[in-house]
């Protein structure tokens, strides 16, 4: 393996904040530089010295895994912070507060504010569940906006008038693509940290979508019957408690493969729990389809993973002379 391949593989496997990744790679490169210089002063040719230094580093994916274990295993503080939004949602449903618009607005605003502040302070692991809830609101509102657009269009065709008024209708039409662009931009940034953390952030989304679908489907109307909807609140609160437990387990499990397994296992279980809670058979086709879509959604951030793009070793050119190691701040 060449030196540039080693650093490329290491970077691909270091799933953590870009700044931390660059710092680790810079430190390792100073080590390799020192080793190459020592070997050359002992009579090795530059090519042989590079080859030997690379061999001594060992398997890059194993080394990256060891770093991942150290840096990405969450502390109990991370666990406490990350589970707060799930527990808050559980409380909101347990006390039937979701029917009060004020609580919904306060909840979404708090999630957005906390996710934004945490993001500006280095995006700690606990920030991702907050980010998920901050993005859940615009994502779930797209379906409502599309229904409003279809309804407005139908009323225009049949009655010659738009019930919501032209300015509001245009606003809704513009809202979808603009908010989509914003969400995609934020998600792409988050994926640069680690696509798996974006999956963790997206964990409540399938359940939210199922909840909304079941609510409207069972009422047969877009305006849910509050009294009937409240009957499901205890079960919904339990699902959010399960989300909190899953998040805690995810953060305390240091191994990446176990984390992937946990997400693949837990999300469909939650969809099935929702289906049972809302008195739909978990064996019906919509439930099975929802489980399939859930797994696909949770694994989809991997498609946005940029791979090795941010770090470029000065030794990327194998024919280049040895140069001083880069400093992360330089």
């Amino acid at each position, binding site marked *: 393996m060449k030196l540039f391949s080693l650093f490329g593989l290491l970077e691909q496997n270091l799933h953590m904040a870009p700044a931390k990744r660059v*710092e*680790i790679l*810079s*430190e*390792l490169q*100073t*080590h390799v*530089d*020192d*080793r190459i210089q020592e070997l050359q002063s002992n009579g090795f040719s530059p090519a042989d010295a590079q080859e030997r230094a690379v061999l*001594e*580093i*060992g*398997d890059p994916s*194993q*080394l990256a895994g*060891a*770093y991942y*274990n*150290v*840096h990405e295993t969450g502390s109990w503080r991370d666990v406490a912070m990350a589970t707060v939004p799930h527990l808050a949602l559980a409380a909101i449903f347990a006390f039937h507060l979701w029917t009060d618009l004020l609580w919904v607005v306060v909840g979404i605003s708090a999630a957005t504010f906390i996710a934004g502040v945490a993001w500006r302070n280095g995006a700690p692991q606990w920030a991702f569940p907050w980010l998920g809830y901050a993005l859940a609101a615009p994502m779930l509102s797209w379906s409502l906006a599309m229904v409003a657009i279809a309804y407005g269009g139908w009323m225009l065709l049949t009655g010659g008038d738009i019930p919501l008024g032209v300015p509001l209708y245009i606003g809704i039409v513009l809202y979808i693509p603009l908010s989509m662009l914003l969400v995609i931009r934020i998600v792409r940034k988050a994926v640069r940290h680690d696509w798996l953390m974006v999956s963790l952030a997206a964990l409540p989304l399938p359940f939210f979508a199922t909840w909304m679908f079941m609510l409207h489907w069972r009422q047969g109307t877009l305006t849910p019957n509050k009294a009937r909807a409240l009957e499901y609140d205890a079960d919904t609160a339990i699902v959010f408690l399960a989300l909190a437990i899953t998040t805690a387990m995810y953060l305390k499990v240091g191994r990446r493969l176990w984390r992937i397994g946990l997400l693949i296992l837990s999300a469909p279980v939650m969809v099935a729990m929702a289906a049972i809670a809302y008195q739909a058979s978990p064996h019906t086709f919509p439930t099975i389809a929802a489980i399939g879509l859930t797994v696909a959604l949770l694994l989809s951030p991997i498609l946005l993973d940029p791979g090795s793009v941010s770090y470029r070793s000065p030794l990327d050119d194998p024919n280049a002379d040895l140069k*001083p*190691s*880069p*400093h*992360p*701040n*330089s």
Partner: protein
Amino acid sequence: MYQKELLKGNTETLLLALLVQEPMYGYQIVKEMEQRSSGYFLFREGTLYPALHRLEKARLINGAWAPSPNGQQRRYYSVSELGMRELRRKAAEWRDFTQAVNLVMQPSR
């Protein structure tokens, strides 16, 4: 040669014991460890750096970029106050352990 498991349990204590003498960077640690143990301890990158980062995350050591004597930037590690306390505790534990092992291994009279 020693068993890997023996080193595994003591890597962090050895690093603290070395860094308490002066701040060092990774490659320097490998060389110092090799020299001071007369070639007995050969630290590999895959063991050394994750261990250093684990110690740093536990706030037992501090890491900072600084120029080395030849002017190149290096990440130097130094022992924190918490690390000093941990080293004292580990050293006492190690003394008790080796003393007990030696007592057992001595032929009985």
